[in-house]
């Protein structure tokens, strides 16, 4: 490729907008997994519904490598332009359709089946998109600046996540939680169609990659890119090196720093919906320019050490970072005082089964407001079953210590009274959240109590959490900024689309995409009767282990050469 950069920004712009939209389409599903599980799966399935959605989410990642094979092959045979135009149409169409599918209540099991099908199409489309866009930009880029130009494509995945979180947050805030959960969640999906139409229009005006056009006019395109990529030893060994020495580690660093961080902040630290997303959004805003910084730097000092340093920093600092998340949001470590005037408790005692008056739903909301601005809300619910039929309930008003006051008929011998007490709530004691409702002998049975905790953290903690996520996204920019150029330079033009797409999507889709899934699974295994919550940091062992293996492989087998000529058939990352 010549060093002429005329028109390169048009190429980058057109490629990036389309890729950004594809990432947006892909991530809104993941971000709305909980709502989708309620809409499309049987209501009584509970955890099963959520897991089913996660499985579909995982399916969306797992089929990505297959998309890489299907569309990579097409891209190496018919060309880059038409292939990633096709992936854009498939992605946009399936996302729009998800926004239109009636819920389980309307069409029964057809709803989850359709969702699964469309999610698979999304995964296939994404599998074909990225490799095409990265290849297309790289093949337009001048030598010596390939890292810089392809790094713009690398910003799109993170910006796609940013856009999806931003639009969801905006829609939810504007509509209200109830309306959003009911039908408003469809808006981000439907909105995608407008973005896709614009992007298709832009992409239709683009020309084919000059390198691909050249080899096509010379009749040098591959007739069987799959065979050439994965059967011929010279290419297979590079595919394996790309996977185990780069994309595998890059994938887990990417998903830990952004997806898992958000999941951990929301589900483990119990930071509320809005703040948990806003933290990620701010961190993305501050960190995104570093994709270009490290992409540019990789043109000067080589790709290898930047990527490996990003992995190493993740390996060494993930546990301290996530421990800091826990410390910052632990009420027991808070130094500020509870603002008594603003703190209140709302007890409720309700009959939940009209026919069986021995069963009650007991709930209480504790709202602790701290002087530093933090607000921790605990909503505790429990079902209790009394020995005898309930006769009367009243709220004596002693809210801090007494949840309810009941009068019971005691075996026909007259009236007896029982108290349902909760530990005194002073706001600074996290143990309150774990305290079970205690019943006197009037209780026959108590179902496992359920406590929902929602924390609005104080401004200082909020800033520190942004900083902690920002640090992680800097690691992401280090591993991800230079990787498109690295992958492009690893393979010859005739099979580049196929060869680079597969390791990229196994690394990101499988190893990276399953970070939240597998990490949650690992935490489940650490749960014991003595420690029912499990070890919250145990899930990090998965990304740390994968990144460690990848770091060693990259360190030993990848070369740090630069000034690569991508038309070369001899690979520069192994041979001197």
């Amino acid at each position, binding site marked *: 490729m010549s060093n002429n950069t005329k028109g390169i920004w048009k190429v980058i712009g057109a490629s990036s907008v389309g890729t950004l939209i594809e990432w947006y389409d892909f991530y809104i599903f993941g971000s709305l997994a909980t709502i989708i599980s309620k809409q499309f799966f049987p209501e009584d399935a509970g955890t*099963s519904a959520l897991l089913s959605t996660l499985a579909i989410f995982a399916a969306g990642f797992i089929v990505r490598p297959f998309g890489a094979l299907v569309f990579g092959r097409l891209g190496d045979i018919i060309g880059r332009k038409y292939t990633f135009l096709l992936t854009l149409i498939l992605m946009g169409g399936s996302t729009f359709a998800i926004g239109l599918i009636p819920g389980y209540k309307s069409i029964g099991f057809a709803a989850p089946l359709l969702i699964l099908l469309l999610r698979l199409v999304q995964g296939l489309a994404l599998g074909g998109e990225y490799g095409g866009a990265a290849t297309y930009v790289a093949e337009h880029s001048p030598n010596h600046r390939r890292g810089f130009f392809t790094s713009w494509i690398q910003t799109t995945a993170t910006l796609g996540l940013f856009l999806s979180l931003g639009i969801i947050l905006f829609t939810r805030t504007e509509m209200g939680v109830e309306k959003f959960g009911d039908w408003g969640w469809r808006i981000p999906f439907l909105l995608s169609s407008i973005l896709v139409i614009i992007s298709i229009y832009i992409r239709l005006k683009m020309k084919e990659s000059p390198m691909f056009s050249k080899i096509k006019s010379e009749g040098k395109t591959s007739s069987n890119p799959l065979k050439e990529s994965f059967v011929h030893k010279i290419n297979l060994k590079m595919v394996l090196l790309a996977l185990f020495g780069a994309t595998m580690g890059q994938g887990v660093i990417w998903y830990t720093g952004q997806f898992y961080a958000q999941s951990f902040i929301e589900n483990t630290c119990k930071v509320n919906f809005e703040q948990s997303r806003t933290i990620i959004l701010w961190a993305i805003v501050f960190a995104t320019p570093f994709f270009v910084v490290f992409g540019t730097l990789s043109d000067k000092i080589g790709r290898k050490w930047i990527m490996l340093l990003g992995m190493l920093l993740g390996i060494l600092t993930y546990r301290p970072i996530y421990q800091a998340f826990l410390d910052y949001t632990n009420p027991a470590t808070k130094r500020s005082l509870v603002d008594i005037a603003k703190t209140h408790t709302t007890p409720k005692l309700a009959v939940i089964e009209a026919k069986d008056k021995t069963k009650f739903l007991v709930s209480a909301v504790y709202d602790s407001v701290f002087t530093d601005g933090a607000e921790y809300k605990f909503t505790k619910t429990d079902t209790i079953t009394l020995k005898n039929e309930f006769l009367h309930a009243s709220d004596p008003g002693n809210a801090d210590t007494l949840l309810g006051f009941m009068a019971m008929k005691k075996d026909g011998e007259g009236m007896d009274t029982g108290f349902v007490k909760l530990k005194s709530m002073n706001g600074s004691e996290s143990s309150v959240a774990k305290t079970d409702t205690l019943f006197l002998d009037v209780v026959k049975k108590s179902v496992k109590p359920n406590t929902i905790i929602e924390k609005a953290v104080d401004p200082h903690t909020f800033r520190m959490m942004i900083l902690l996520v920002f640090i992680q996204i800097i690691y992401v920019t280090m591993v991800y900024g230079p990787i498109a150029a690295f992958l492009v330079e690893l393979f010859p033009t005739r099979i580049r689309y196929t060869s680079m797409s597969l390791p990229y999507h196994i690394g990101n889709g499988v190893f990276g995409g399953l970070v939240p899934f597998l990490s949650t699974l690992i935490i489940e295994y650490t749960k014991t009767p003595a420690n029912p919550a499990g070890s919250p940091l145990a899930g990090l062992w998965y990304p740390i282990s994968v990144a460690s293996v990848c770091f060693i492989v990259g360190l030993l087998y990848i*070369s740090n050469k630069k000034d690569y000529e991508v038309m070369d058939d001899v690979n520069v990352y192994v*041979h001197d």
Partner: protein
Amino acid sequence: MNTIRKIFGLIWILLGPAVIYFIIYNAVNVLGKADKAIAAATSEAARATAEAGRTNTILQWGIIVIIFIPIAFGLIIFGKFALQGEYDR
């Protein structure tokens, strides 16, 4: 350095089967636990919950086995290439 690359090639070859064993061992283990939970259920509701748990377990570990075993074979091939000096400089 090339010797270290080859030695690590052997490690990757051994790591592949270790990963496969680890995955299958865990899959069988958790499925066994899920079966025990069904057998231990004392009510219809508890049984339904346990059966749903078993379905989820099969789903989760089915995904893990299907995806990671071929990748483990890839690691073995990668190790073989490293051992043969394909990545030597």
